């Protein structure tokens, strides 16, 4: 977990270890000004996260992602697993709502169970194989840090077309299924 946190922070992700669902809700609440897109991830739904966010007074986008996506301030998703060597989160994103939630808004909050962190990308290959066996169509995303570019004079600049902020929220107990979808 320490390797994961260091690697993710090295590429500009915000990483927070959280102790409870309540901490998760208030972490997001403190950092959002506008609507929050929530893709229907099984782990988040199971834990009742959308309901808790609404109860905290947040404006959630849970349908019409295409229509409301561009205006949303942030997106919230779960994650299938992490890769410690590079600080990567891996999201099975075949459902379009996951993709829109993680591409259009300025901020992306992603909740990862620390028990689902693999050491290296090599260990992810059997899982990639399984996903492809289970799903005739597949869109899988490795996300490492925020959107970046160095296309002008080689100066590293954050937040070009994708999210300018990536918040990885480590919450033990949210899910232990790496293949969840």
């Amino acid at each position, binding site marked *: 977990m320490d390797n994961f946190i260091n*690697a993710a922070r090295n*590429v500009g992700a915000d990483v927070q270890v959280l102790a409870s669902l309540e901490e998760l809700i208030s972490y997001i609440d403190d950092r959002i000004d506008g609507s929050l897109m929530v893709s229907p991830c099984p782990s988040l739904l199971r834990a009742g996260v959308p309901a808790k966010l609404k109860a905290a007074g947040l404006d959630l986008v849970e349908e019409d992602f*295409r229509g409301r996506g*561009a205006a949303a301030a942030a997106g919230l998703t779960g994650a299938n697993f992490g890769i410690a*060597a*590079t600080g*990567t989160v891996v999201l099975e994103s*075949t*459902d*379009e709502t996951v*993709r*829109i939630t*993680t*591409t*259009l808004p300025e901020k992306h909050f992603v909740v990862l169970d620390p028990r689902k962190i693999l050491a290296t*990308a*090599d260990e*992810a*290959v059997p899982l*990639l*194989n399984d996903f*492809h066996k289970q*799903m*005739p*169509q*597949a*869109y*899988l*995303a*490795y*996300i*490492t*840090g*925020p*959107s*970046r*570019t*160095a*296309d*002008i*004079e*080689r*100066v590293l*600049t954050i*937040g*070009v*077309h*994708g*999210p300018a902020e990536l918040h990885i929220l480590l919450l033990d107990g949210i899910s232990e299924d790496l293949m969840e979808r």
Partner: protein
Amino acid sequence: MNKADRSRHYQDRVRKAIAKPRLQDTLHRFADAYVIAREAAFAGQDFEALRTAIGEMKDEVRDNLPRYRDEFIANAEAAGAKVYIAKTAADANNYICALAKERGVKTVVKSKSMASEETHLNHALKEAGVEALETDLGEWIIQLAGERPSHMVMPAIHMLKEEVAELFSKVTGKEEPAEILHLVRLARQQLRQAYLDADMGISGANVAVAETGGLVLVTNEGNARLTTTLPKIHVALVGMEKLVPTLEDANRIINVLPKNATGQLITSYITWIRGAVPCGDESKELHIVLLDNGRSALAESPHCRDALRCIKCGACANVCPVYQTVGGHVFGHIYISAIGVILTAFFHGLNNASELVRACIGCRACVAVCPSNIDLESIILHLREVLGEEEGVGAGKSIVFKNVMRNRKLFHGLLRAASVLQKPVTRGERTIRHLPLFFSGLTEWRTLPAIADKPLRDLWQDLPQKVEKPRYRVAFFAGCLNDFVYPEMGIDLVKVLNHLDVEVTLPLEQSCCGVPALYSGDKDTAVAMAEQNIEAMLKDDPDFVVTSCPTCTMALQRDFIDLLKDNPVWAEKARNLAEITIDISCFIADKLDGAEAFGKAIKSEKVTYHDSCHLKRGAGVWEQPRQLIADSGREVVEMAHSDRCCGFGGSYSFSSHADIAKQILGDKIKDIEASGAACVAMDCPGCMMQIQGGLQKQEKDVRVKHTIELLAENLDD
């Protein structure tokens, strides 16, 4: 365009590029940062093993292409994609334009695709009445500027922020400040709505996986994810060489590609797409266009086909001194730098590649960093031969190579004559400071050494050798420079080897190693020289053949074998010679354990060491000379970029590319001076000639010495 116009046009572009110091500054700064970041990214990994595996995997696909291609197509189509094989660039463009017309597409968003640059797809779409918008920041910038990419990974690396601000100001209609963060955010705002409005998204792919029928996109900005998600139709234009067998193989490429491209451990996004994924309430319409466009022909060329291993990381540009000097618009066509030379020849025709083929200085920096284990320099040399056959090697060179160099007596006779004829310009000195008339360009930026009064071969019989019980008898292959320009170095070599109980012979039938002819594309002359030299050097059955010039070393160790491998009479002799050939520093350090045999230099001196391209990246030697210099009592201080080319490159700096060579030498002189050393040592008479010439012209007080000369100084003391 005829050959003369083409050359003139090209030289003109070289001069214009050199006149932009900020371009060179940007490219140099990037190159420096790149080397450090790359090394850190690969820490703990065995790069040689990684690239060997990638090379072998890519060869496997190339050799069994129909099988993997069919497997890919079957799997992609089973997942709902439509796959089209485009034989030519026009076929690819026609397919995409027809599709756009049929579906009533008005606007297209594109994420970065070099294949679409290769086919000039944007132009074709425009002709078809479809507006294509580039969304990668660099690509958008050059689209606005009406230019083409100057780097495969960083298309707009040649542009300054002020130039970008000017382009963006035209888009917004007000003056935009030249602040990079502002410009980046402005691109985000400007392009946001386009993704939502576009009817079609076009991407390339970094990898196509046969076992899944899926594609992999390696990106940083996030535009490819939007391009492949929002529009109803996704077209992926994919070069056939992107095929790999399995997900594991794809993973192998993804491990190496970002590290070698920019020194990143991984890019922000790795996207795996298989089939017609959900899109709105329906399924995406996915078309995969597999592009041949010369790749099959490349696969058929035994000399060049390794180029199909390329994973398009752009590293060969990052480390290339020619690229750093003139940029990718000059040293490239669509694809740039070393790999660009080769791909241009096959994808866009030899005519578009001919100037580029000659612009490579042959320093092998690209070979050292290639993640697919491609010997880029050898392939470029081969293309130079082909070009020599197609277009000739140039009238002047042709006469010299064919009629003079192949005849040793005539060649050496002319060199002796030159020693006399040069007197008016040398004024009796050992250095030529100014040449008259049209030769003057050669001595404007460096002095040149004069040809010696007496070559080493004439001094040899009077050279006393005092070895009572020789450990070895070695034959010295002096090479032209050692023999005719620096004979004193040969005398030092004898002194040093005698001190280590080694007897030295100088076979007089030896001649030029033939590399100048080979590198200029005259293979026949190179073969003739190889045979002549093999005969001469093996004649007295020496224990070793020692060399003091790494280019000669490469010729004897590598090129002769390659030139004669299909000739049953000579192939074995060439191998025999290669086996006993060794460069002088390596011989002393490794075979004679002679590092400590030279006592301590009386006057300790700071010495910096310049790694010659062919010694370090050709023969793999860099530690031994440093060891010898340090053990002889001198302080070795490292200069920056010690293994960057000095810009000599044999005839490169004399004829074809003097302007570029001058710039590269300028960089080297700065690094030498910054090291604070009183002496710069090296193991190559060619580098000595170049570096000494540059230092003298700039009146810098730094001694230039061959390692062997430094060791000999200890014996004088």
